């Protein structure tokens, strides 16, 4: 089976997650092997996911954890007067 680029784009996400049925995965892989545009789309998507998942992109505010646990303690105190 041969598929065109537009079909491959629909499979990119499932391809990254390893969630495609084997037959489809092979078809997509074959397309990627010879299509530099789809390969670049796959590579850039994967790269962007990795960058976004980096802890430095979304950081917790300084002191967040301390304040959260203080708030929990406050709740405990409410329970045990």
């Amino acid at each position, binding site marked *: 089976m041969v598929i065109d680029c537009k079909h491959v784009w629909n499979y990119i996400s499932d391809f990254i997650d390893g969630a495609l049925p084997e037959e489809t995965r092979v078809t997509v892989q074959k397309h990627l092997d010879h299509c530099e*545009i789809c390969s*670049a*789309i796959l590579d*850039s998507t994967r790269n962007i*996911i990795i*960058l976004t998942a980096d802890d430095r992109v979304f950081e917790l505010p300084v002191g967040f954890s301390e*304040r959260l646990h203080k708030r*929990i303690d406050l709740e405990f105190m409410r329970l045990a007067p």
Partner: protein
Amino acid sequence: MPQMMNRSEPEMIAAILAGEIQLFHELIRPYERSVYIMALSYMKNEADAEDVAQEATVRAFRKLSSFRAESKFSTWLISITLNEARTRLRRQVLVRMESLEQLLDEDTRLSPALLRDWREIPSEAIERDEVRKLIQQAVDQLPDMYREVFLLRDVEEFSINEAAEALKISIPSVKVRLHRARSMLQKQLAPQLRLVNRPPKRKLLPWL
């Protein structure tokens, strides 16, 4: 108290409900970040997000007896967080209505940014303010329904099933939304990051 650390989540929850409330601190610790990130994705500012994170955590403590063991604590906690955030937005009358278009177009195709090749952007690039800002803005601009799926799955590393459970949507919906979120980010970010990543011009080889 090292023996406490080794308790499984269900054991910790049972112990908390039996009166060892201090254990709640340990129970919540692994999920603090996820709670905050999901709150931030709705509230859009740090102060409100922190407030929502705190209230959701306290609410989870108060409701702990209603937690059912068939779901995971993490997904249960995230649904409470999202509820808290949505309730607060509604109260503030700030709820950004998703346009009809956004809700109806799940079937339509989204074309990616077309590139001939991709030069890998290394993680060190995150150290640069401009790169972090580009990524934050792009995620921020995603429609809510795509952003929440993307953050849970790709940033907080929930499984597809866990994301579906936390968001109370079907697994196929998670997959469709995740795909769209990733495509939108690729479309927006690939051209921008590529410019940022471009090596300095080599004056001696003008034809490059």
